[in-house]
């Protein structure tokens, strides 16, 4: 089959890699005789930020064409679909039928295969765990022609290796998940202001029984406003209402902003306005699920805000064992001092539901995620310091959002990586995997 040489960008648009791309449209496209020579990597929407969805010197197999639904049980909410179906498509299908995703990340423009490969998490991690926790089974296709039906009881080792396996174990052909019933599109949401990590932890503990929780945190404010933020809770509304389909987004971020547009002053101003938008300490509202879960999806291509150079994401989790959340505080201090932070910064408590994924990222503790514009030397140096602090405090970083961690850091975060290697398909590789397993 013919391939095309394209610039395939990850969401962070960094690192820039030009590569061969071969779209897959049918499961039968994935067989040795039809695939090109050299390394391969199956990918979905390319919404991971760094290089887990990139491959230099090889062919990316874009699986978006595997977008068919296979089976749906309107009684139980059981959905089987091909792995290139996006979560947005599942919502369009399921919401009018009274069902919702069991787990969703902050964007609905990811594929089911990508959600498995990165073992994504959402605002309900504290109670529901990761995508892998809600996965009933899937089929894994290997380049040697083997087709493995994987579930917690069948081919369980392959099930574990593929969840969070970064696409390296083979092509996920289809998957089966159980959707959760809803009676309304809306979310009953409570927003509460806080100042400091201690208050954030207190609020999180008190909200352990609520479906969804996440907090926006100001990474620019210093002094008595240090670590101020807005804690946001959500619960599916329980009063029946019409279940319509979402409108299509109509706003596309029109241009690549110049580098100077995002700076300490503009972000600081935004943060102050955002923090003070809500006058009361606590406010309760009923909001549609779209702005609640996917505020940024309303603007297509919002990554252009960071200009041509792209952006770096940083997401770590620091375990509870870390005394007094010293690691999170150090990381926040480091970011505040740098003045590089964007306004897209979130902090959340991960619960103790253990994912079946061998290489899964979430673990009990506090997770912090934020964007940085790419500024030569400055942002790379900052990210390197943040990664070191994460290592020192026994935490780990999220491959789906990384373009910087060193082999030493990765191997400290994921000591099981050597055991994982035996499950990697010999024809599959990624720019990320080459980077973090390089000899140092």
């Amino acid at each position: 089959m013919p391939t095309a040489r394209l610039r395939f960008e990850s969401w962070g648009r960094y690192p820039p890699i030009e590569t061969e791309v071969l779209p897959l449209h049918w499961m039968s496209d994935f067989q040795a005789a039809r695939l090109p020579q050299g390394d391969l990597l199956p990918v979905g929407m390319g919404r991971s930020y760094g290089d887990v969805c990139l491959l230099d010197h090889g062919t990316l197999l874009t699986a978006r064409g595997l977008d068919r639904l296979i089976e749906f049980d309107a009684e139980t909410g059981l959905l089987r679909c091909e792995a290139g179906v996006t979560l947005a498509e599942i919502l369009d299908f399921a919401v009018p039928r009274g069902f919702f995703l069991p787990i969703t990340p902050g964007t609905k423009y990811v594929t089911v295969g990508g959600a498995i490969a990165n073992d994504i998490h959402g605002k309900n991690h504290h109670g529901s765990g990761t995508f892998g926790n809600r996965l009933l089974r899937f089929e894994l296709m290997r380049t040697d022609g083997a087709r493995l039906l994987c579930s917690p009881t069948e081919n369980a080792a392959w099930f574990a290796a593929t969840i969070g396996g970064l696409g390296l174990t083979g092509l996920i052909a289809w998957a089966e998940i159980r959707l959760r019933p809803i009676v309304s599109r809306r979310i009953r949401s409570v927003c509460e202001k806080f100042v400091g990590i201690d208050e954030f932890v207190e609020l999180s503990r008190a909200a352990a029984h609520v479906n969804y929780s996440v907090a926006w945190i100001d990474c620019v404010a210093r002094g008595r406003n240090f670590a101020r933020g807005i804690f946001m809770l959500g619960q599916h509304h329980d009063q029946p209402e019409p279940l319509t389909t979402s409108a299509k987004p109509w706003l596309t971020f029109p241009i690549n902003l110049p580098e100077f547009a995002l700076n300490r002053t503009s972000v600081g101003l935004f943060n102050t306005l955002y923090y003070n938008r809500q006058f009361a300490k606590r406010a309760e509202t009923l909001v549609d699920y779209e702005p609640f879960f996917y505020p940024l999806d309303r603007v297509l291509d919002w990554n252009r805000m960071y200009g041509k150079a792209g952006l770096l994401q940083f997401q770590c989790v620091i375990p509870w064992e870390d005394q007094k959340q010293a690691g999170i505080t150090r990381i926040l201090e480091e970011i505040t001092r740098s003045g590089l932070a964007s306004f897209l910064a979130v902090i959340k408590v991960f619960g103790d539901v253990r994912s079946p994924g061998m290489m899964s990222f979430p673990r009990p503790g506090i997770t912090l995620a934020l964007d940085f514009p790419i500024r030569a030397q400055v942002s790379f140096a900052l990210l390197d310091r943040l990664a070191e602090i994460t290592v020192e405090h026994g935490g780990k970083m999220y491959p789906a959002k990384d373009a910087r961690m060193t082999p030493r850091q990765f191997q400290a975060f994921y000591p099981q990586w050597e055991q994982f290697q035996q499950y990697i398909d010999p024809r599959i590789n990624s720019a990320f995997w080459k980077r973090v397993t390089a000899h140092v």
Partner: protein
Amino acid sequence: MSEPASKGVLKVLILGATSAIAMAVERRLAAEGAVFYLVGRDPERVRSVAADLRVRSGAAAYADALDLADTSGHEAMLRRAVAAMGGIDLALVAYGVLGDQARAEASYPAAARILETNFNSVVSLLTWLGNYFEAQGKGVLAVISSVAGDRGRKSNYVYGASKAALNTFLDGMRARLDRKGVHVLTIRPGFVDSPMTAHLPKNKLFAQPDAIAAGILKAIRKRKDIVYLPPIWGPIMFIVRNIPEFIFKKTNL
């Protein structure tokens, strides 16, 4: 799934059901609850498309694996479709081969394969379906042709000739059946971003299959005769058709 569909539900026959444009049309019709009889060459593909449509529409979707380039199976298949759905309201012809122009220039069998698939075999289906719709006094025959049929170009005139012949056939068939209540629609898409064109570099003229599908359904609703999709191809092909031959023959289009 064996009982015929009830009245009021659109009964759709898709010939070449696994092509990118056909799949986009099917998804849009599934949202309206249509019943489908799907014909395509690869059994696994047709089955997976049928399953998808059943889930989306909640209605029946029958899968029939058949190589439509071979006309010997046409009549039996068409009878199966009528029996399964209890009739046909809309038939969409959506299969064809782009072929390899260089090989078609070098040898007649390669050229003949393009002509037989894109023209002769379609004529076999249209003949039966035209008579069927004429007898029932209604029906829509929507046929995907191509802008390539508007003028023979150096780079793909064999494919273009197959589509030009198809366009002419459809013009005549429309004149015959329009007065019998049958709607004959010639669809002329420009470049479409699909597996058929996966090997070509893409530019702004390439349309997504779903945009073409939306245009097809609109043209059916409006009872159009000929539709260029996306519509920008109407004026483009007007210009292309009107370039004097002494200039056109020098181009590399």
